[in-house]
């Protein structure tokens, strides 16, 4: 690509000479319960460029899955979305359900945490992959089946022609995730969303699936948004990452920078909680407390009740914006005291 790129402060929409595939701006999601709206995600900005993998990390309940479902337009009917989600320049939030059906599975595909449950037990895996090609590409039965067999070959399913006629219950979890991946990339999308794709799999299989996602991504040049709670996975496959806590992004930077110089106390806590073979298990860091539920998000910094560095009223009253703290590599953090505190390297 020979386009000239203009670098503008915090906006990294067209960084590195690659076109932004996904641009999420000011995304918020509210869920209605008993006639009141509860905000569960807000002020989320994300950019995924073609050929790169962006990690979205956080504990359970941090809003990372809701964010990904909002991008896909797969939220339940009692959800309301704010902000914009641009895929290849088009705002998806403005599309009707019918129009979205021509984007889902074509321009973006998604794989999920439980590959076995995500496949329909009543149809052969080949049919479930071919169906996507038939629906979106208008391919005939035979042609779509051939495409499915090719895709199975691409995702490394042995004996693809025979296995395409098998049912999901005849596959292992790892193989099911390969089928899901084949299905998600069947129409060569520009964006792949992977929601905890390896969480339900054995450790050895995890590596294979992550490697496969990487391989497919490079071969097809697609952008990947990888949702995970596992920083180990981030370290392995992501280029950039955003850390979410209680419905907000608290830190966003390149993976190397995140691991070397975390600027948010929560990120530092997560890093300290990672198992390290050089460190004894009882020195494993633990962040005290739990992620608050959406109806009980505290005022100010949402992490302050669990933070060792909190100071009143700086951290406890006003909303803290996500601000640019780049030194060399782009780096944004949502901490009022980021410049005052030193987060010790806990691994020593």
């Amino acid at each position, binding site marked *: 690509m020979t386009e000239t790129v203009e670098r503008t402060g915090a906006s990294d929409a067209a960084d590195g000479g690659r076109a932004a595939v996904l641009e999420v701006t000011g995304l918020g999601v509210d869920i209605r319960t008993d006639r009141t709206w509860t905000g569960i995600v807000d002020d989320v900005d994300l950019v995924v460029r073609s050929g790169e993998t962006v990690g979205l990390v956080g504990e359970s309940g941090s809003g990372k899955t809701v964010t990904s479902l909002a991008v*896909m337009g*797969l939220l339940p009917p009692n959800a309301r979305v704010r902000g914009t989600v641009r895929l290849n320049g088009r705002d998806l939030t403005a599309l009707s*359900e*019918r129009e*979205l*059906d*021509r*984007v*889902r*599975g*074509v321009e973006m*595909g*998604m794989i*999920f945490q*439980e590959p076995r*449950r*995500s*496949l*329909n*037990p*009543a*149809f052969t895996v080949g049919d479930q992959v071919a*169906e*996507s090609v038939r*629906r*979106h590409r208008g391919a005939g039965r035979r042609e779509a089946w051939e495409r499915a067999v090719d895709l199975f070959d691409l995702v490394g399913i042995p004996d693809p022609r025979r296995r395409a006629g098998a*049912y999901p*219950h*005849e596959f292992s979890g790892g193989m099911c995730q390969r089928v*899901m991946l084949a*299905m*998600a990339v069947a129409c060569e999308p520009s964006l792949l969303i992977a929601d905890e794709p390896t969480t339900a799999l054995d450790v050895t299989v995890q590596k294979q699936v992550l490697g496969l996602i990487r391989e497919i991504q490079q071969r097809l040049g697609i952008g990947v948004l990888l949702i995970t709670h596992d920083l180990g996975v981030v370290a392995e496959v992501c280029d950039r990452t955003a850390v979410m806590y209680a419905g907000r992004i608290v830190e966003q930077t390149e993976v190397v920078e995140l691991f070397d110089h975390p600027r948010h106390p929560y990120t530092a806590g997560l890093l300290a909680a990672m198992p390290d073979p050089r460190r004894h298990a009882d020195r494993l860091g633990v962040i005290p407390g739990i992620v608050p539920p959406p109806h009980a998000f505290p005022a100010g910094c949402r992490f302050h009740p669990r933070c060792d560095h909190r100071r009143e009223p700086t951290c406890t009253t006003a909303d803290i914006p996500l601000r640019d703290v780049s030194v060399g590599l782009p780096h944004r953090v949502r901490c009022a005291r980021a410049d005052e505190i030193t987060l010790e390297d806990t691994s020593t």
Partner: protein
Amino acid sequence: MLRFVGTRLITVVPLLLLLMLLVFGLVQIAPGDPAAIIAGPDASAQAVAAIRTELGLDRPVWEQFVSYLGNVLHGDLGTSYTTREPVTEVIARALPRTVTVAAFAMLLAVLVSLPLGVLAAMRRNGPVDRGLTGASVVLMAVPPFVLAALLVNYFALGGLQIFPPTGYAPLTDGLGAWLEFATLPAIAIATISLAELTRQARGSLIDALEEDYVRTARAKGLGRFWTVGKHAAKNAAVPYVTVLGLNVGRIVGAAVIVEAMFNIQGFGQLGVDAVLTRDLPTMQGVVLVSGVIVLVVNLLVDVSYGYFNPKVRAR
């Protein structure tokens, strides 16, 4: 799939034997001496003994059972005590009436319950869903004979005289004639299962729609039609077909009463008359054929599981 159907068929054989044993035992435990019933109240002891020998009732029980088995397998269900006609012929005359009317009722129940159930599931907890739930409860509470009486009153006697109030024309007289007589009874019979089937269609579709594979189908951009009509429907079919199978028995039960009201002279009527006249061979025949119907329906339901759920096939 063929092998699956084969194994299912084989499991039916012992059940069939058991059924015949039970039907045969019916005579053994029935009060009164069949020979005495045939001979009439004024017959001499000698005449009764002669009839007993003629019927083979003086032979050992196991011998009687073996010869009964042989006869049944040859399509011989004995001779009616009252009309002296072969039971097979009597049943062959009455059964098609009941089976066609019951099948019509079944078809109506399915054709109405499926769209209503889908509608209720798609608009869960909306006014349509709540309205259908209410209507279901009311319908479940109305016995078929009450409904039959109301139907006759409004559509045959008073108000609209569209249908004949009673009687029957076999299908061989033409579809129009048959429909004229079969419609009201079929509606009366269908309603008994309609409410339950609608609830079941709604419930199993709602369960299926909450499964992860439905989210996958939506993520594929399949749209509502294929997501519901293909992915959710095939999985939701299993519990629905199960309940449908269970309802066959209920529909046959309702047919007995409704047939009597419409004077259809069907299979249920035959059974009732046989009991009232203590016509044991006809009773046996009716029970045996009913049992076979239940076995066949269960077999069909079992085989359908194999189609809807490939996991069942593998076992």
